[in-house]
């Protein structure tokens, strides 16, 4: 019999980018929240300006989370092996948002309607065979207020490109209409991002500074960014990054309504005889404990969300929780990130510094912002150029053809050119496909002996063409900015840190796991937070959309809770057994 924690209104599994938002919204509304976090607490005093510690050995993605990294195969007939792509994630209060660079773009309106808009413009035949491309069950306009809540609460620095329909060329003219300006001015441009902005303008493109959850000036009691150059894979050394551990969670904890259980590994979501969740069983200090709750929000990273559902089998849900329609794990996607490099002979590009959020973006090749007729692929992705280059990275990046990778020739090239190499990258939006799925690996186990998630993912023809297209645009951009020679990284690089799908959001229980508020069709008091609910992966960084959806889901829970309390204010709630 497992130990029993005091009952909470809501059990929250994972308190990261999504869970942090949920904790904020729920405690503001007066609900009691018990958060089960697999990691511990990290803080600014642990920050180090040390590439080996942060970027190479990835101290934040500790051994435990490394042991949980999913296995990978590209075809169902293969045995899954180690993932050829980065998939690291942080287990900590604040989650992977502790070590991200804060890029906080909204999705474009098109991203919510990509199927119907594609058919309208290019016809039914434009949807690739086998693709399960679908519209979202909500529009950009429905999500807009929640985007704004998040931007204001965590502090996003940026410039509106479309303020209520009025376009501003210093922001992103392709974005959906916004109700208000960003709460903070954009992070300052650097010599390098300025150079790339000019290059983009030379091409007739529309560069804009990335909106980032990093303080460009003091905000919400936290100081401004110092542009130290050690943002990625690191805790911010001055708390200028609006990661949930500093922007959302402290206030939620100060209400006295949020209890965070750290080093607590959720292993099963439990259901009662009616098929409703009644709490979460978790492991702490090697012992099983039970957290009873009246509702459960599952807000771990995508892979863990899917794993927990598949592992939570019961009489009512023999194939895993909320999986009687066998939809859990379907429609896995990720961004493919082409990187291009350019040589600017004699220039000191001075990229050894800066926040990872000092990025210049181009959205001209994202979504349907360009004519796809004859291109053979759908969608696109944002293009970005950024600072924050570090020495090991500079010595590791791909070299132009003909330059040796070691020895005297290599040294000579580095000495001559290391200051003069620029780079840019894109985030191509993979389509969802019938065959790209997540399930439990029959062999591989994590450190606690539980099965790991297995990814089956094939890169389709649409994706190869899209990759090539973005790569050409990246090289064109570098050349227009002054590069005399450009080159591309070899192979196709899929970023497993930007995944989506697995618990698709939709109106139809036959083809989706959660409804438009992200509550499970089959389990009405179970909500799912995170990119696992995305019907499509979008052509922008996912975090802000994850957070806006988490806000909406939490608000929906609060609203229905209040409605029910009002309707049954005299009913004593049974604690169950």
């Amino acid at each position: 019999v497992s130990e029993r924690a005091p009952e909470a209104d809501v059990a929250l599994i994972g308190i990261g980018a999504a869970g942090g938002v949920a904790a904020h919204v729920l405690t503001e509304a007066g609900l009691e929240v018990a958060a089960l976090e697999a990691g511990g607490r990290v803080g600014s005093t642990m920050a180090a300006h040390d590439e080996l510690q942060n970027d190479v050995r990835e101290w934040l993605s500790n051994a435990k989370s490394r042991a949980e990294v999913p296995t990978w195969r590209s075809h169902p007939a293969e045995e899954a092996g180690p993932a050829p792509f980065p998939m690291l994630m942080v287990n900590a209060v604040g989650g992977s948002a502790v070590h991200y660079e804060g890029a906080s773009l909204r999705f474009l309106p098109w991203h919510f309607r990509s199927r119907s808009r594609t058919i309208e413009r290019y016809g039914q035949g434009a949807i690739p065979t086998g693709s399960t491309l679908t519209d979202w069950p909500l529009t950009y306009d429905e999500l807009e207020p929640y985007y704004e809540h998040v931007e204001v609460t965590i502090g996003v620095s940026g410039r509106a490109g479309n303020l209520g329909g009025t376009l501003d060329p210093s922001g992103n003219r392709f974005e959906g209409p916004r109700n208000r300006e960003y709460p903070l001015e954009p992070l300052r441009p650097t010599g390098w991002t300025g150079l790339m902005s000019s290059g983009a303008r030379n091409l007739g493109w529309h560069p804009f500074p990335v909106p980032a959850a990093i303080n460009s000036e003091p905000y919400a009691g936290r100081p401004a960014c110092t542009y130290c150059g050690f943002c990625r894979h690191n805790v911010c050394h001055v708390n200028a990054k609006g990661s949930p551990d500093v922007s959302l969670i402290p206030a939620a904890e100060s209400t006295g309504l949020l209890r965070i259980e750290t080093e607590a590994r959720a292993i099963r979501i439990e259901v009662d005889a009616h098929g409703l969740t009644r709490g979460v069983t978790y492991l702490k200090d090697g012992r099983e404990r039970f957290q009873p709750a009246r509702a459960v929000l599952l807000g771990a990273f995508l892979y863990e969300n899917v794993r927990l559902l598949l592992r939570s089998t019961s009489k009512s849900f023999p194939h895993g929780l909320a999986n009687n329609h066998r939809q859990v794990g379907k429609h896995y996607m990720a961004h493919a990130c082409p990187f291009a490099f350019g040589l600017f002979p004699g220039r000191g590009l001075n990229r050894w510094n800066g926040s990872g959020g000092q990025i210049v973006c181009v959205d001209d090749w994202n979504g349907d912002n360009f004519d796809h007729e004859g291109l053979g692929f759908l969608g696109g992705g944002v293009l970005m150029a950024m600072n924050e280059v570090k020495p090991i990275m500079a010595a590791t990046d791909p070299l132009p053809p003909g330059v040796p990778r070691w020895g005297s020739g290599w040294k000579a090239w580095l000495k001559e050119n290391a200051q003069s190499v620029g780079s840019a990258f894109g985030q191509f939006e993979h389509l969802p496909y019938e065959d790209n799925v997540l399930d439990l690996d029959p062999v591989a186990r994590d450190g606690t002996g539980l099965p790991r998630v297995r990814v089956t993912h094939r890169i389709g023809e649409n994706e190869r063409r899209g990759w090539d297209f973005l790569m050409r645009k990246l090289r064109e951009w570098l050349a227009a900015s002054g590069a005399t020679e450009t080159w591309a990284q070899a192979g196709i690089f899929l970023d497993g840190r930007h995944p989506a799908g697995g618990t698709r959001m939709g109106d139809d229980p036959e083809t989706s796991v959660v409804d438009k508020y992200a509550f499970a069709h089959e389990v009405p008091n179970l909500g799912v937070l995170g990119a696992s609910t995305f019907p499509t992966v979008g052509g922008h960084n996912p975090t802000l959309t994850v957070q806006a959806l988490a806000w909406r889901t939490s608000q929906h829970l609060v609203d229905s809770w209040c409605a029910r309390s009002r309707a049954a204010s005299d009913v004593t709630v049974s604690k169950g057994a």
Partner: protein
Amino acid sequence: MSRRGCPLPQSFADVERVAETLVQKGVRVWLFGGWAEERLGLTEPREHGDVDFLYVADDFDRLDGVIARQGWPLEKHLPHKRAVRLEGLTVDLFLVRRDGAGYYSEFDGRHHRWPDDVVSDESRLPVASTASVGGFRAAFERLLEEQRRQQKPAREDCLSADELGLLAAVIERLVPSDDHGPGAREANVLRYLEQALAGEYAEHVEAYRDGLVLVEERARSTYGPGFRALGGDEQDDVVAWLEGTAPGFFELLLRHVREGMFGDPRWGGNDGFAGWILLGYPGPRPVWTADEQQLDVQPAPTYPAPGR
């Protein structure tokens, strides 16, 4: 031969399963080593750290192809042996070749001649012949005795002085000391590797050891003397051969060398900030002003950088 931390097979059923998996992929093998001794009644049942098989072929080309296609995790890549992870076990496959005089193998530079009946068993779990298993065991014991006489203790957890000397010579070819400035030697990349292999990278010690064996064998078989006695161009040829032949180890080594050359000196390498000076990296600083972020600005290094 047992390896700490590896689950041990418990029964012949496990071994049979592995053998069947191999056969299904077209890899015909004969059980060998401890399991064969047990099967043939030469020894009492005991625990085994791995499963040994004999594999009859001219070379490993086909087997390497199967391993790559199946995605079996490769643990060892040696001239005479491949070790893969299969069904949760470490599976060693020894290459047995054939010439006019019969079957033979090369083990660590030693020539071993097999009895003619070595692979005559045709059963479901074919076992190498009693004479070959017993004969190899006897030869192996003689070798151990010889090594004991030479007082060469086998060190499991770190590289020997000899191995470190060879490693130093290899990494000095990767980042040579030349007209462009100090190299791996001056930057003390070896110290970085030693410290890393003694800690966070301990799991890679075996890969280093095996990789260094490859380097030394290649040097001796191609040029006669060992790697350290060769001239720079010859050493480069061997390193280039390693890059093409054992990419797994080579990429690992190159990655670690870059870390030792260009990482923060607190990890043991980048002595004298040699790597940072080479790149023109001005060092970490907690605050960068707008002026310091402009193009063609070279902020003063935050570390002592003579001559720059």
